[in-house]
């Protein structure tokens, strides 16, 4: 047998080791890439999503009222799980946002309508964050994301520290004055699991609100996301909401 020169031996070993190391490193990287690039609803069925069509909202406030009735949200003192903001953008770029009683009882007439450049309604609710700040800060694990993508509160284990209320970038949480726990939109989880739509979707007269299963490509929300230009709120925060808006003006925060 011919003897292998030392230089060749070292070269061979090094290249073999490098190839093996690269192969070993590539597998988890490929897996991680797939995991983080792929939307979560490819992994779990069903996976709930919500869409709002701002161009259809007429600001009637039926959703706010329905949500309160369905979920026993306190009327006195007044709290909301969902509310509708009215944006009034004047021609001189002055912006006014109001939401008296969450929009439940209507809005006062707009003064000087001839100076209005643009005005519209923006319904707000839980943004169904994929990376929820509220879940991360809860010290007792009382707020959590379910397997089907909904953020909920365990009322028995919530200690009422209000940390999550501070953490929510969208201001959708409040402190329930009677139960003495944090409370928030649950996208009517009890209704979804019974095959019904949320109370706000049920009450919406114009179809401006939609709830559905993102894991089903034929569902109303999947179709809506596919056929329209949709945006999320505060995208720069990396919360990756599953609540998307169509016709979102750049002034909306």
């Amino acid at each position: 047998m011919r003897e292998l020169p030392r230089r060749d031996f070292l070269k061979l070993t090094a290249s073999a080791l490098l190839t093996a190391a690269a192969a070993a490193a590539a597998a988890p990287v490929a897996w991680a890439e797939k995991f983080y690039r792929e939307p979560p609803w490819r992994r779990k069925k069903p996976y709930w999503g919500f869409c709002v069509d701002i161009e259809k909202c007429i600001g009637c406030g039926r959703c706010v009222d329905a949500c309160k009735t369905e979920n026993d949200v306190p009327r006195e003192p007044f709290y909301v799980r969902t509310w509708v903001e009215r944006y009034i953008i004047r021609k001189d770029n002055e912006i006014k946002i109001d939401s008296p009683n969450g929009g439940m009882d209507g809005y006062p007439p707009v003064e000087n309508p001839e100076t209005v450049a643009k005005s519209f309604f923006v319904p707000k609710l839980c943004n169904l964050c994929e990376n929820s700040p509220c879940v991360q800060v809860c010290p007792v694990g009382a707020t959590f994301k379910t397997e089907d993508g909904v953020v909920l509160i365990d009322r028995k284990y919530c200690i009422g520290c209000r940390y999550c209320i501070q953490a929510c970038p969208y201001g959708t949480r409040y402190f329930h004055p009677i139960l003495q726990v944090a409370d928030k939109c649950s996208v009517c989880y009890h209704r979804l699991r019974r095959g019904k739509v949320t109370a706000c979707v049920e009450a919406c007269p114009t179809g401006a609100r939609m709830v559905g299963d993102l894991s089903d490509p034929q569902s109303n929300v999947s179709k809506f996301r596919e056929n329209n230009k949709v945006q999320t709120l505060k995208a720069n925060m990396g919360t990756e909401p599953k609540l998307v808006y169509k016709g979102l003006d750049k002034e909306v925060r």
Partner: protein
Amino acid sequence: MKDIEHLLRVAAIFLVAIALFVAVRSVVKPESYGKLGRYRAAALDEIKALPVRYAGQQECGPCHKTQAREKAGSSHRGISCESCHGALAAHAAAPKTAKALKPEESSMRGFCLRCHEAAVSKPAKFPTVEGGKHNPDMACSMCHKPHSPKI
């Protein structure tokens, strides 16, 4: 060789601490914790069991065929019955005992105008009227049928 005693003492303290932790945890930990994630799985069942107040559009049709058919052919077709009549799950389950409400004639104008009052903020395509000018002092239902409003 005597130094090993120190190590043993530390090890003993650690063992006791771990045993204590395991004991306390087994008592304090909620039973269903960790079954689905870092939360109490039983909380999901509690949330799922919450009562439903809105029956849903599909429940009303079988008993109220006339209204359902009338509405389905009108521009109000997209509005669910309970959007106007309020939460009626109790009524749908027991129509004799739980009475359903309908908007009264005295409050009819306010009721319809909540959606139909003209305002700059509303989408331009949405049919609106100026409540103060559109046949004031008459209930909307004198001319428009609520389940089929086109005249």
